[in-house]
Protein backbone atom coordinates (compact mmCIF):
# COMPACT_ATOMS: atom_id res chain seq x y z
CA UNK A 1 0.00 0.00 0.00
CA UNK A 2 1.07 3.52 -0.75
CA UNK A 3 1.82 5.46 2.36
CA UNK A 4 1.99 9.23 2.63
CA UNK A 5 2.90 10.48 6.08
CA UNK A 6 2.89 13.98 7.46
CA UNK A 7 5.09 15.00 10.36
CA UNK A 8 2.34 16.31 12.65
CA UNK A 9 -1.42 15.87 12.93
CA UNK A 10 -1.84 19.05 14.95
CA UNK A 11 0.41 22.09 15.17
CA UNK A 12 0.04 25.39 17.02
CA UNK A 13 2.32 28.28 16.13
CA UNK A 14 2.50 31.98 16.81
CA UNK A 15 2.22 34.79 14.29
CA UNK A 16 5.55 35.51 12.66
CA UNK A 17 7.08 32.09 13.34
CA UNK A 18 8.70 30.09 10.55
CA UNK A 19 6.80 26.83 10.13
CA UNK A 20 7.88 23.63 8.42
CA UNK A 21 5.40 20.96 7.38
CA UNK A 22 6.98 17.72 6.26
CA UNK A 23 5.60 15.05 3.96
CA UNK A 24 7.15 11.70 3.13
CA UNK A 25 5.96 9.07 0.63
CA UNK A 26 7.25 5.53 0.32
CA UNK A 27 6.24 4.60 -3.24
CA UNK A 28 9.00 6.28 -5.22
CA UNK A 29 6.47 8.70 -6.72
CA UNK A 30 7.72 11.48 -8.94
CA UNK A 31 4.92 13.96 -8.22
CA UNK A 32 4.12 15.54 -4.87
CA UNK A 33 1.55 18.16 -3.94
CA UNK A 34 0.60 20.47 -1.08
CA UNK A 35 -3.04 21.54 -0.64
CA UNK A 36 -4.85 23.52 1.97
CA UNK A 37 -8.39 22.57 2.92
CA UNK A 38 -10.84 25.15 4.25
CA UNK A 39 -14.58 24.76 4.93
CA UNK A 40 -16.64 25.82 1.95
CA UNK A 41 -13.58 26.17 -0.27
CA UNK A 42 -12.57 22.55 -0.75
CA UNK A 43 -8.93 21.81 -1.48
CA UNK A 44 -6.73 24.40 -3.11
CA UNK A 45 -3.32 23.63 -4.55
CA UNK A 46 -0.44 25.58 -3.01
CA UNK A 47 2.59 24.07 -4.76
CA UNK A 48 3.53 20.89 -6.53
CA UNK A 49 6.73 19.19 -7.60
CA UNK A 50 7.25 16.73 -10.45
CA UNK A 51 10.88 15.94 -9.71
CA UNK A 52 13.60 16.49 -7.16
CA UNK A 53 14.47 20.18 -6.87
CA UNK A 54 11.63 21.07 -9.25
CA UNK A 55 8.61 23.02 -8.08
CA UNK A 56 5.70 24.87 -9.59
CA UNK A 57 3.23 27.28 -8.09
CA UNK A 58 -0.32 26.18 -7.65
CA UNK A 59 -3.34 28.39 -7.24
CA UNK A 60 -2.50 30.01 -3.88
CA UNK A 61 1.30 30.11 -3.42
CA UNK A 62 1.48 33.49 -1.67
CA UNK A 63 3.03 33.24 1.77
CA UNK A 64 4.39 29.73 1.17
CA UNK A 65 7.50 28.13 -0.23
CA UNK A 66 8.50 24.49 -0.72
CA UNK A 67 11.58 22.32 -0.79
CA UNK A 68 12.22 18.98 -2.43
CA UNK A 69 15.77 17.84 -1.89
CA UNK A 70 14.97 14.12 -1.96
CA UNK A 71 12.43 12.26 -4.05
CA UNK A 72 10.46 10.95 -1.08
CA UNK A 73 10.23 14.19 0.88
CA UNK A 74 8.35 17.42 0.13
CA UNK A 75 8.36 20.25 2.65
CA UNK A 76 6.00 23.19 2.89
CA UNK A 77 7.41 26.31 4.52
CA UNK A 78 5.53 29.23 5.97
CA UNK A 79 8.22 31.91 6.15
CA UNK A 80 6.28 34.09 8.59
CA UNK A 81 3.07 32.49 9.75
CA UNK A 82 -0.08 34.57 9.84
CA UNK A 83 -3.51 33.90 11.31
CA UNK A 84 -5.04 33.54 7.84
CA UNK A 85 -2.84 30.51 7.31
CA UNK A 86 -4.73 28.60 9.99
CA UNK A 87 -6.01 25.62 8.02
CA UNK A 88 -5.78 21.90 7.31
CA UNK A 89 -2.80 21.09 5.10
CA UNK A 90 -2.84 17.94 2.97
CA UNK A 91 0.06 16.39 1.14
CA UNK A 92 -0.36 14.01 -1.80
CA UNK A 93 1.83 12.05 -4.18
CA UNK A 94 1.38 10.32 -7.53
CA UNK A 95 3.48 8.33 -9.96
CA UNK A 96 3.85 8.67 -13.73
CA UNK A 97 3.42 5.16 -15.04
CA UNK A 98 -0.30 4.47 -14.68
CA UNK A 99 -1.62 5.32 -18.15
CA UNK A 100 -3.79 8.38 -18.77
CA UNK A 101 -4.09 9.28 -15.12
CA UNK A 102 -2.09 8.49 -12.02
CA UNK A 103 -4.02 8.50 -8.79
CA UNK A 104 -3.02 10.95 -6.12
CA UNK A 105 -2.59 9.41 -2.66
CA UNK A 106 -3.15 11.66 0.31
CA UNK A 107 -1.64 11.91 3.76
CA UNK A 108 -3.82 12.29 6.88
CA UNK A 109 -3.34 16.06 7.04
CA UNK A 110 -1.83 18.57 9.46
CA UNK A 111 -4.20 20.92 11.22
CA UNK A 112 -2.24 24.13 11.74
CA UNK A 113 -3.43 26.85 14.08
CA UNK A 114 -1.64 30.20 14.03
CA UNK A 115 -2.29 32.35 17.10
Amino acid at each position, binding site marked *: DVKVTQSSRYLVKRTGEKVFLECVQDMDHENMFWYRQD*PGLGLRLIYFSYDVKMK*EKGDIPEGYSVSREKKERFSLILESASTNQTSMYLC*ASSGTSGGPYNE*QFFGPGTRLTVL
Partner: protein
Amino acid sequence: AQSVTQLDSQVPVFEEAPVELRCNYSSSVSVYLFWYVQYPNQGLQLLLKYLSGSTLVESINGFEAEFNKSQTSFHLRKPSVHISDTAEYFCAVTVIQGAQKLVFGQGTRLTINP
Protein backbone atom coordinates in the same frame (compact mmCIF):
# COMPACT_ATOMS: atom_id res chain seq x y z
CA ALA B 1 -9.30 27.04 -16.78
CA GLN B 2 -11.28 24.24 -15.24
CA SER B 3 -13.62 24.68 -12.30
CA VAL B 4 -15.89 22.44 -10.25
CA THR B 5 -19.08 23.34 -8.42
CA GLN B 6 -20.68 21.14 -5.81
CA LEU B 7 -24.16 22.47 -5.40
CA ASP B 8 -24.81 21.29 -1.85
CA SER B 9 -22.50 21.99 1.07
CA GLN B 10 -24.42 19.63 3.37
CA VAL B 11 -26.76 16.74 2.69
CA PRO B 12 -28.55 15.04 5.61
CA VAL B 13 -30.34 11.79 4.87
CA PHE B 14 -31.79 8.90 6.83
CA GLU B 15 -30.12 5.52 6.86
CA GLU B 16 -31.17 3.26 3.96
CA ALA B 17 -32.49 6.23 1.98
CA PRO B 18 -31.10 7.07 -1.48
CA VAL B 19 -28.76 10.01 -1.93
CA GLU B 20 -27.42 12.13 -4.78
CA LEU B 21 -24.48 14.50 -4.42
CA ARG B 22 -24.33 16.96 -7.29
CA CYS B 23 -21.24 18.04 -9.17
CA ASN B 24 -20.94 20.30 -12.22
CA TYR B 25 -17.76 21.28 -13.96
CA SER B 26 -16.65 23.72 -16.59
CA SER B 27 -13.89 23.10 -19.06
CA SER B 28 -13.06 23.97 -22.63
CA VAL B 29 -11.32 20.64 -23.17
CA SER B 30 -11.97 17.01 -22.37
CA VAL B 31 -11.59 16.12 -18.72
CA TYR B 32 -11.15 13.25 -16.35
CA LEU B 33 -13.51 13.31 -13.39
CA PHE B 34 -13.22 12.00 -9.86
CA TRP B 35 -14.97 11.63 -6.56
CA TYR B 36 -12.85 11.56 -3.42
CA VAL B 37 -14.13 10.75 0.08
CA GLN B 38 -12.77 12.00 3.39
CA TYR B 39 -13.89 10.08 6.46
CA PRO B 40 -13.66 11.89 9.82
CA ASN B 41 -10.06 12.62 10.83
CA GLN B 42 -8.61 10.99 7.74
CA GLY B 43 -7.05 12.04 4.46
CA LEU B 44 -8.79 11.81 1.10
CA GLN B 45 -9.34 8.50 -0.67
CA LEU B 46 -10.30 8.01 -4.30
CA LEU B 47 -13.88 6.72 -4.50
CA LEU B 48 -14.31 6.43 -8.26
CA LYS B 49 -13.11 7.95 -11.50
CA TYR B 50 -14.19 8.53 -15.08
CA LEU B 51 -11.42 8.45 -17.67
CA SER B 52 -13.14 7.15 -20.79
CA GLY B 53 -15.55 4.49 -21.99
CA SER B 54 -18.80 3.80 -20.14
CA THR B 55 -20.24 6.97 -18.68
CA LEU B 56 -21.48 5.11 -15.61
CA VAL B 57 -18.75 4.24 -13.12
CA GLU B 58 -19.08 2.37 -9.85
CA SER B 59 -17.21 2.05 -6.59
CA ILE B 60 -16.75 -1.07 -4.50
CA ASN B 61 -19.05 0.21 -1.73
CA GLY B 62 -22.16 0.81 -3.82
CA PHE B 63 -21.68 4.38 -5.04
CA GLU B 64 -21.99 5.22 -8.70
CA ALA B 65 -21.52 8.35 -10.79
CA GLU B 66 -22.58 9.17 -14.31
CA PHE B 67 -20.63 11.43 -16.64
CA ASN B 68 -23.02 13.63 -18.59
CA LYS B 69 -21.09 15.63 -21.15
CA SER B 70 -24.03 17.68 -22.39
CA GLN B 71 -24.89 18.82 -18.88
CA THR B 72 -21.24 18.94 -17.74
CA SER B 73 -22.18 16.97 -14.65
CA PHE B 74 -20.80 14.04 -12.68
CA HIS B 75 -23.35 13.41 -9.92
CA LEU B 76 -22.69 10.78 -7.26
CA ARG B 77 -25.50 8.44 -6.21
CA LYS B 78 -26.15 5.59 -3.85
CA PRO B 79 -29.52 3.80 -3.67
CA SER B 80 -29.30 3.02 0.05
CA VAL B 81 -26.86 4.70 2.43
CA HIS B 82 -25.33 3.36 5.62
CA ILE B 83 -24.12 5.12 8.74
CA SER B 84 -20.56 4.36 7.65
CA ASP B 85 -21.03 6.56 4.56
CA THR B 86 -20.92 9.64 6.78
CA ALA B 87 -18.05 11.67 5.31
CA GLU B 88 -17.17 14.65 3.19
CA TYR B 89 -17.20 14.05 -0.55
CA PHE B 90 -15.17 16.01 -3.07
CA CYS B 91 -15.63 16.14 -6.82
CA ALA B 92 -12.51 16.91 -8.86
CA VAL B 93 -11.31 17.31 -12.45
CA THR B 94 -7.85 16.97 -13.88
CA VAL B 95 -5.78 19.59 -15.47
CA ILE B 96 -3.41 17.76 -17.76
CA GLN B 97 -0.25 19.72 -17.19
CA GLY B 98 2.95 18.25 -15.97
CA ALA B 99 1.97 16.49 -12.78
CA GLN B 100 -1.74 16.14 -13.57
CA LYS B 101 -3.06 18.64 -11.10
CA LEU B 102 -6.53 18.20 -9.66
CA VAL B 103 -9.09 20.98 -9.30
CA PHE B 104 -11.51 20.29 -6.45
CA GLY B 105 -15.03 21.34 -5.70
CA GLN B 106 -16.05 22.86 -2.39
CA GLY B 107 -17.05 19.54 -0.85
CA THR B 108 -20.37 18.09 0.33
CA ARG B 109 -20.75 16.86 3.88
CA LEU B 110 -22.99 13.79 3.92
CA THR B 111 -24.63 13.10 7.27
CA ILE B 112 -26.54 9.87 7.81
CA ASN B 113 -29.19 9.89 10.51
CA PRO B 114 -30.42 6.62 12.04
